[in-house]
């Protein structure tokens, strides 16, 4: 059996191997970590929803949820419980199999993508040597969930929403991929933990690659926001036009999966940005470099939250794009700029102009 290097918890690992045969221990360990990740990110997703609602309120001079628990801290928990207890309805003419499959498709793909992130030196489930490639590949699968969800609902609004999602994701995948490749040119490796090691000595990649890296970051943020189907790119669920878009016919926990997946996807995009541009779990200017007890996860989280805040800022500022504007932005602006940027980055590395 193939051994996958799971290096989160050394002690549990050793203990499991001492009480069980090797294969069983390996499988148990993977299961444990999967459950831990599931629980962790379900809760994290719920708190992201809360954060979004609070931030949205503050942008609109409101207070936001503040009734359930202190400062409304349990609001989204209560919402999740409510959704859990709700009946799972569906219409008569849905394609039952695909209809039930779609939410799991969406949520599992976003959870799979989470497994490769190095949240700190030890806190990484799966240090694969093609990490970046794996991320690009996995993040494209989620759209299939949306597509089959919209198709199987047998509802024209859901269908239009899903088709828009297809158009949007396929277009913007290019920009996400190309801006990531621009950064990979600089690192010379696809392994996420190694990308961070490179930044330990030379400074964060956005500093090492200066101008093309900043352009790549801007493009990545725009395309990443589009990937997660958030405003201003939320044509997929444009409430004023399509009801709720592709998840119009979903209720209860299945709806919650779509909802949670959106927020976990946002977390993923922010994490990719942090790893590729802002040094992952490395502290700024190495200020906590020597302190061994300092949880490096904290730096990762702070950076991710700043980027998520930026995405929320986008959402609550910009109006929704029309579908032709969406495609113009991608194919006429982002893509050419990205290609030129890639060449510029290559030239800069060739001439040794990086910091």
């Amino acid at each position, binding site marked *: 059996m193939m051994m996958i290097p799971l290096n989160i918890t050394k002690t549990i690992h050793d203990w499991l191997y001492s009480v069980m045969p090797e294969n069983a221990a390996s499988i148990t360990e993977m299961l444990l970590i999967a459950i831990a990740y599931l629980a962790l990110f379900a809760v994290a997703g719920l708190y992201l929803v809360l954060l979004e609602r609070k*931030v949205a*309120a*503050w*942008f*609109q*001079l*409101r*207070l936001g949820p503040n009734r359930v628990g202190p400062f409304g801290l349990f609001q989204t928990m209560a919402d999740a419980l409510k959704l859990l207890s709700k009946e799972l309805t569906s219409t008569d003419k849905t394609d039952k199999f695909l209809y039930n499959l779609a939410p799991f498709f969406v949520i599992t793909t976003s959870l799979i993508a989470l497994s490769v992130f190095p949240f700190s030196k030890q806190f990484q489930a799966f240090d694969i040597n093609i990490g970046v490639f794996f991320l690009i590949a996995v993040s494209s699968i989620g759209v299939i969930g949306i597509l089959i969800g919209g198709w199987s609902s047998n509802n024209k609004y859901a269908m239009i929403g899903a088709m828009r999602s297809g158009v949007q994701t396929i277009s913007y995948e290019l920009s996400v991929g190309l801006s990531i490749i621009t950064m990979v040119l600089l690192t010379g490796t696809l392994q996420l933990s190694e990308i961070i090691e490179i930044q330990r000595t030379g400074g964060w990649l956005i500093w090492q690659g200066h101008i093309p890296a900043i352009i790549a970051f801007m493009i990545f943020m725009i395309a990443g926001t589009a990937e997660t189907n958030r405003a201003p790119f939320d044509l997929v669920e444009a409430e004023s036009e399509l009801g709720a878009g592709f998840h119009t016919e979903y209720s209860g926990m299945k709806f919650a999966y779509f909802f949670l997946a959106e927020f976990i996807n946002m977390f993923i995009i922010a994490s990719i940005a942090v790893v590729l541009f802002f040094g992952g779990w490395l502290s700024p200017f190495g200020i906590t470099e020597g302190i061994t007890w300092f949880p490096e996860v904290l730096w990762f989280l702070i950076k991710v939250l700043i980027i998520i805040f930026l995405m929320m*800022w*986008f959402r*609550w*500022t*910009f109006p929704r794009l029309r579908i032709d504007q969406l495609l113009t932005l991608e194919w006429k*602006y982002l893509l050419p*700029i990205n290609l030129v940027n890639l060449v510029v980055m290559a030239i800069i590395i060739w001439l040794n102009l990086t910091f």
Partner: protein
Amino acid sequence: MSYFSDIYNGIKTLLTGMSVTGKYFIHARKGSLTQQYPDNRETLKMFDRFRGEVVMPHDENNEHRCTGCQKCEIACPNGTIEIIWDRGIDEETGKKKKKIDKHIYHLGMCTMCGLCIEACPTDAIVWAQNYENSVYDRTKLSKVLNQPGSKVKAGIED
């Protein structure tokens, strides 16, 4: 060449928008518009232009300004106002004169359009700012606006 100026202008306008919302975000804690209603019931005061219900103010002598001209009744698109009037003898001149018996206002039918208040030539009816108008029985929503025993203020018609 407009390609690059488009990009420049695009980024500029996006940043302008973000700075506007950013300012709101920073001031959100102080300038929040939310009223935490049942909690601040004692202190909550509605703004002047709020339309709670139509009332008829009376002065200390229990006198109102309504002459019974029925313009409000005609102006109301919903038939919310009903005026029961009578002819009485005016003490000063000894002539017969129209005066109101009951100025009935059905709050349940009112859309708060304000046309009656616009129409009234003597400003006898005004907006009140109360907002807790729910009752358990809809007959309670029909109100007589003139107080019992009240009469029209002298000299209003001139």
